């Protein structure tokens, strides 16, 4: 204890103690700590949404519920009537443009199917049939065989992944 009297008031002068303390590391919590915390944290709404909400609340504060209801109903009715009126006035143009776009899209799809997909499919079918024939296999039988195998696998998978039936009346102890 002789040394204690010589220690200065700002106590950062002992390299040996510093070195020993400096050699201590940090501990880590168990895996998944971050997720466990985030799961229990309320992430706030984005600021713009909060300000919009606050503005709406500010606008309606001090106004009676009936006034809000009547104003909202009138505004909705006006918006709907305007939309219907505009729709009726321009229905010819709207339907004309829509049917034009639709027929163009259908034409394009038909073209792609007729010139690309259908010949490709026919060619692939012919190639596969020729290959199967060279192996001495009937294409129809191969397709049926595949269908049966897939069906059997699906049924097996269903049974393998099925949850075990819960026993009624079982009480699980927690802690």
């Amino acid at each position: 204890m002789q040394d204690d009297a010589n220690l200065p008031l700002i106590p950062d002068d002992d390299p040996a103690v510093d070195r020993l303390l400096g050699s201590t590391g940090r501990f880590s919590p168990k895996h998944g700590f971050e997720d466990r915390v985030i799961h229990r944290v309320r992430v706030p709404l984005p600021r713009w949404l909060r300000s919009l909400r606050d503005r709406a609340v500010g606008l309606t504060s001090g106004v009676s519920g009936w006034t809000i209801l009547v104003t909202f109903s009138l505004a909705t009715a006006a918006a709907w009537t305007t939309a219907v009126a505009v729709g009726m006035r321009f229905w010819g143009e709207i339907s004309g443009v829509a049917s034009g776009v639709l027929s163009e899209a259908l034409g394009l799809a038909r073209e792609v199917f007729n010139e690309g997909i259908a010949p490709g499919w026919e060619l692939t079918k012919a190639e596969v049939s020729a290959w199967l024939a060279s192996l001495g296999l009937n294409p129809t039988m191969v397709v049926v065989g595949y269908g049966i195998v897939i069906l059997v696998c699906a049924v097996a998978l269903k049974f393998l992944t099925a949850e075990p039936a819960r026993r009624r009346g079982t009480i699980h102890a927690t802690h």
Partner: protein
Amino acid sequence: MSDGWDLAAASDQQIVAWAQDGTELAFRELVRRYQRPVFSLIYRMVRDREVAEDLAQETFIKVLNAIDTYRPEHKFSSWIFKIANNAAIDHLRRREPDMLSLEGAPDAVTIERQEATALQVGDRGESPLDELEARELGSHIEGAIGRLRPEYRACILLRHVEGRSYEEIASVLGLPLGTVKTYIHRARAELRDYLEPLRE
């Protein structure tokens, strides 16, 4: 992630601003940055891994749920350490004062419980002999820290493990600067005595 969203390079203040704006990734980054310092501080204070996990979790939940109240003129680290330290001190006050043993809590009567409450000194990937020595040394140091009074322990951990300034420690612990210096001075003197055999 768009430009200006480099979470790893951003300051605590910037991350907190993003968190206040409702960005979940910013919350995650804060947890990632502080989970080890906060958990280590609490673990060394309470000496029980399970309890330390719970208290660290509560600390983060309290801080992150109150993120809107954070004022950027203060350091985020001071705020979170303050809440962590308060949580640990509250826990120690509720429990009997001397539950500090490197071999496990005194109420640990089974081997499993002793293992669960013993302070695990980390593996540093050295040779078996070095590792054994490091573990032994680490155990001595942890044991010495564990023998300090909780307020001394908090000061010494914040100063020497977390590298905080005296001013920040005073702010975290809500103590006058002079008191912090005195506590660290006394803690170091006690540690020097406890660690005397290791000093050559």
